[in-house]
């Protein structure tokens, strides 16, 4: 057996689908080839880890809810991913009302915030959107810069959805991943309602030298696009 055949049979070996003859030939090759042995060992560990990925238990009330009419949540605001992810909560107050009559300004009012991400790790970033009045059917648009992605949506550069903002704090949680270091960029959240809009810019910066020891992006004020 050569390395190419070994590679082709690796999945069958992992799934326990090799015949006795194939298995012996496969394992003989592993004994004689350090590279294939390391690859097989790594593959085996990854499969073992996948089988132990955590998942929440089913809510106890779910069987009871199944008898009720289907009522979907406002899923557009819920970008939550696996509960095992670290949670990084950075709250930026977005004051939508800067005039006495309108819920928010009609100029290009820009609010700037900084967030801290960790390279290649999804983290929930939560923003508080504070509104002085209830706004039904507000249109939210999120623009993601190169190097930052929503977990589970790698190619999505822009998200647009409609949501109702309640009076007071509304929380928007985004699972963000920085997939590049040396980032000096921003993502933009635009909120439109009744012909007016508000823009929130979130600056993101990476530090190459902190990678791989932590790769935590610095949170700094005063970001300029």
């Amino acid at each position, binding site marked *: 057996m050569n390395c190419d055949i070994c590679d*082709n049979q*690796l*999945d069958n070996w*992992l*799934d326990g689908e090799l015949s006795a003859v194939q298995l012996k030939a496969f394992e003989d090759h592993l004994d004689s080839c350090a590279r294939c042995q390391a*690859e097989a*060992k*790594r*593959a085996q*560990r*990854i*499969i*073992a*880890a*996948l*089988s*132990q*990925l*955590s*998942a*929440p*238990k*089913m*809510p106890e009330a*779910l*069987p009871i*809810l*199944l008898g*009720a009419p*289907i009522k*979907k*949540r406002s*899923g557009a605001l*819920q*970008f*939550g*991913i*696996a*509960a*095992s*992810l*670290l949670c990084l909560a950075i709250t930026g107050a977005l004051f939508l009302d800067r005039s006495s009559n309108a819920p928010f300004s009609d100029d290009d009012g820009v609010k700037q915030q900084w967030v801290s991400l960790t*390279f*290649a*790790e*999804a983290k929930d970033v939560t923003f508080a959107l504070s509104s002085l009045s209830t706004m039904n059917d507000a249109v939210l648009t999120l623009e993601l810069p190169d190097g930052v*992605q929503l*977990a*589970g*949506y*790698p*190619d*999505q550069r822009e998200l647009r959805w409609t949501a109702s903002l309640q009076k007071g704090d509304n929380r928007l949680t985004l699972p963000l*991943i920085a*997939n590049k270091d040396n980032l000096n960029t921003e993502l933009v959240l635009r909120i439109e309602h009744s012909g007016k809009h508000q823009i929130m810019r979130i600056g993101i910066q990476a530090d190459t030298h902190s*990678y*791989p020891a932590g790769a935590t992006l610095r949170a700094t004020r005063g970001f300029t696009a």
Partner: protein
Amino acid sequence: MANILSWRRKSRSSADDILNSHLPDLYRMAFRLSGNQADSEDLIQELAAKFLSKPNQLDKLDSPQTWLKRSLYNLFVDGYRRTKLQPVTFSTITSADDTDFTDQLVDSAAGPADQAQNEQLQQQLQTALESLPVNQRDLVILHDVEGMSLTELENILQEPLGTLKSRLHRARKSLRFFLVDATF
């Protein structure tokens, strides 16, 4: 009329029993696919509505579990991914040293002190999964995470076994590449 109602109640009760017996597995699968609890519950609710609306057809099913899982997957693809997910491209992370991810992976004898580290590793694994193209990600989730056989998935995903094997091969290779390059 009373007999028909009685028969319907009996059918519904039987359907409830079947559904309830598979509910924990279905919920876990829904969570793996959708990635969050809210969508998982919505998916299960829709599945239950679909399943319980035709209780008299249950007797015709050879394997309710396979039917339920296939239906759940179809609901996910049709109703959720269409509106929420876009095609995924593979993203590469440049390695800064030769640390091997798998050297730090699951140790069945790990004590409490190792739990935090395992949590971080699971997070890396989750990120790697999310970087796979969606059809590869689904296959890895259903086969390697959920433990369904490729023969079973041939039925659920409605694709030939050879296609699934090739896809699984590419997906696992990508995961190994991704996780070797990621540094901890």
